């Protein structure tokens, strides 16, 4: 396989892992209006749970269960969902900005737990040797990445189809109703808190899935992998792609990750050798400029939310049965 193709496979794996997280965030923000700025925290829970469940025995911390990768992934999703439940019950009654602040705090608390609970997570040293699926088959570098790409792509398709079905269902319509006008929804007998909790837990479980896959992909996790900048990256992906639209989340993820990393190569080629050490600064400028440009041209994101019109109105009915 040529070098460029091999790199594209690697790139796509990371972009699709972020796409999964963006899909989870889209369910929370795009469809339910939950302002969750704690994405990195639930991603962390997924990563570490996977490391503990499927990783090797560690001399300094919990591990050594050696469970198969599939079990580790399910465990990661369950743990992320559980923590979302525990965290959601007290905080989901808060509105927008207040929920945002609470979730920032939650993400930082989770990161500090990972940093300090050394018996659980290995602390700042991190957890290494996290396995890939089909580790025993001793695939070569290229084959292992290809297999992983197929796995991640399949999971993305699965999650996408599941979410699309759910948001077109009555449950999905209630979410949108709560997002638009909570009082109207509750006056019709829907309990907004219950639906928000369900959406939050489900979205966080999907983020946990992304975290588990990322841990398997890189093979090593450390608390410094889950800083608030990660939350910002996912939010940028969702906003640029178009929140409220699952295809937008997918498109945004691939595009934003492409220019987040691609600007590095551009900066490297633009600068003369004497200024190469400033390449990083130029890259960050370019990232900001591109984000700004896209949002100026398409403020609602690249693919805006689809207008859903009630079936009755579409059929031209006048309300008579």
């Amino acid at each position, binding site marked *: 396989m040529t070098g460029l193709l091999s790199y594209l496979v*690697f790139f796509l794996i990371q972009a699709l892992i972020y796409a999964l997280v963006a899909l989870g965030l889209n369910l929370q923000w795009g469809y339910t209006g939950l302002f969750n700025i704690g994405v990195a925290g639930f991603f962390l829970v997924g990563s570490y749970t996977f490391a503990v469940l499927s990783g090797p025995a560690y001399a300094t911390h919990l591990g050594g269960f050696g469970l198969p990768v599939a079990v580790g992934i399910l465990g990661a999703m369950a743990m992320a969902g559980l923590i979302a439940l525990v965290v959601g019950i007290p905080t989901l009654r808060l509105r927008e900005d207040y929920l945002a602040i609470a979730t920032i705090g939650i993400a930082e608390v989770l990161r500090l737990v990972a940093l300090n609970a050394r018996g659980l997570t290995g602390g700042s040293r991190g957890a*290494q040797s996290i396995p890939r699926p089909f580790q025993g088959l001793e695939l070569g570098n290229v084959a292992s990445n290809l297999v992983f790409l197929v796995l991640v792509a399949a999971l993305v398709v699965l999650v996408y189809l599941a979410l699309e079905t759910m948001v077109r269902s009555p449950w999905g319509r209630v979410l949108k109703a709560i997002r638009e006008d909570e009082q109207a929804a509750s006056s019709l007998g829907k309990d907004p808190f219950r639906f928000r909790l369900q959406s939050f837990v489900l979205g966080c479980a999907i983020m946990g899935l992304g975290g588990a896959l990322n841990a398997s992909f890189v093979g*090593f996790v*450390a608390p410094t*992998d889950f800083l608030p900048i990660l939350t910002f990256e996912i939010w940028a992906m969702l906003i640029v792609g178009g929140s409220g639209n699952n295809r937008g989340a997918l498109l945004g993820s691939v595009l934003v990750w492409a220019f987040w990393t691609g600007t590095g190569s551009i900066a490297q080629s633009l600068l003369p050798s004497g200024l190469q*050490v*400033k390449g*990083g600064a130029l890259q960050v400028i370019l990232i900001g400029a591109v984000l700004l440009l896209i949002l100026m041209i398409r403020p609602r994101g690249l693919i805006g939310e689809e207008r859903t019109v009630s079936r009755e109105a579409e059929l031209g009915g006048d309300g008579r049965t």
Partner: protein
Amino acid sequence: MRKFLILGAATIPLLFGTALAQSCTVTIGSVMALTGSLGVLGQQIAKGAQLAVADLNAAGGVDGCTVKLALSDDQTQANVGVDAAKKLVDVQHVPAIVGALSSGITTAILTSVTAPGHVILISPASTSPTLTQLGKDGKTGGYFFRTAPSDALQGVAMADYAYTGGLRKVAVLYLNNAYGQGLSDQFVKAFKGLGGTVTQDVVYNPDQPSYRSEVNKALGGGPQALFLIGYPGDGTTIAREWVASGGPQTWLLPDGLESQAFVNDVGPSYFKKVYGTAPGTTDTPSLATFKKEFQAKFGSLPTQAYMTNAYDATVIVGLAMDYAKTTTDTAAIRDAMRKVTDPNGQKVYAGANELQAAAGLLKLGTTLQYIGATGPLQFDAYGDVAGPYVKWTVTGGNVKETGMITVSEIEKVQAELAK
């Protein structure tokens, strides 16, 4: 006149001939933190690598090719660093990467890109013992090297220094990050192993306005001295509160606090007795050459760590490629890394002139011992280097280096502790 012109015209192809001899280019990759929390340090460390490439080219290039440094930023983030490394390996086909700085990013690049891709990764600044562990677990394929000694060593050096200095009861206050956790762990283990007592081992988080509660906790048990691990800033706050709470003014201080500004801010009179350690370099001509050349090329030489380590890492990669007479066979280059740092080899030093001499020796296939700006480097089985440590103290209010703790002394202590 015409004959003169014809003669002149005849020499022109000769000029082209010599220029064409360098028509190939070999790219050495580098992933460093140019932005983000380590960005300020990283930009200077990257210059160390750039100087090395300039020197290698002045010495005639590597294996007949001009060397180019492909420098990528990792933004002090693992995901960006991993992607940059993969791009260097797959698209620019680099045989070796100098980087990264943060241990977390180096480990991520190692496990996901360079070890499976059989590309050499040589880090100038990552000190986490996790990288040694991966070598022991057989996960690196021998493709990992580093020119900075592991944190594991400074803890042992400090414990030995303190114990032989007569201290038996020490309290530890350490910063909650990889540096602090690693160094404190190693110190506690070593100090207890030598027969001392660590009365309290207290962690603190950065950027707090006051550390009263941590200091009070650390005072429990009546220690003779405080091992304070951190950086100036929070370190200053803690030191002042320690003194104000009546703590003993005997200090164990690591490299992070080897700073005159720190001593001045706390108050020089409070440093009654200081046992300080810091990664040192054996004094060799290479360091002076490096300083001179760096100043000439970049205009100023900042006082910070790891620039020399980056220079040495890049030079060793270049020499190894020259020895192995290949810029693409990474297994051969990997094996050659120890042939240019062989303690029995012919000594060569840093700087453009020395490297020119080295190039001549390598053409004959001579084994070399490269004495770098950080001293003579020798890689052990896992790619680690052992380095000496500098002893420093505060006398008359001034930070002063007083001696060395040599590699063999540290190894002796380690052997004793292993029993």
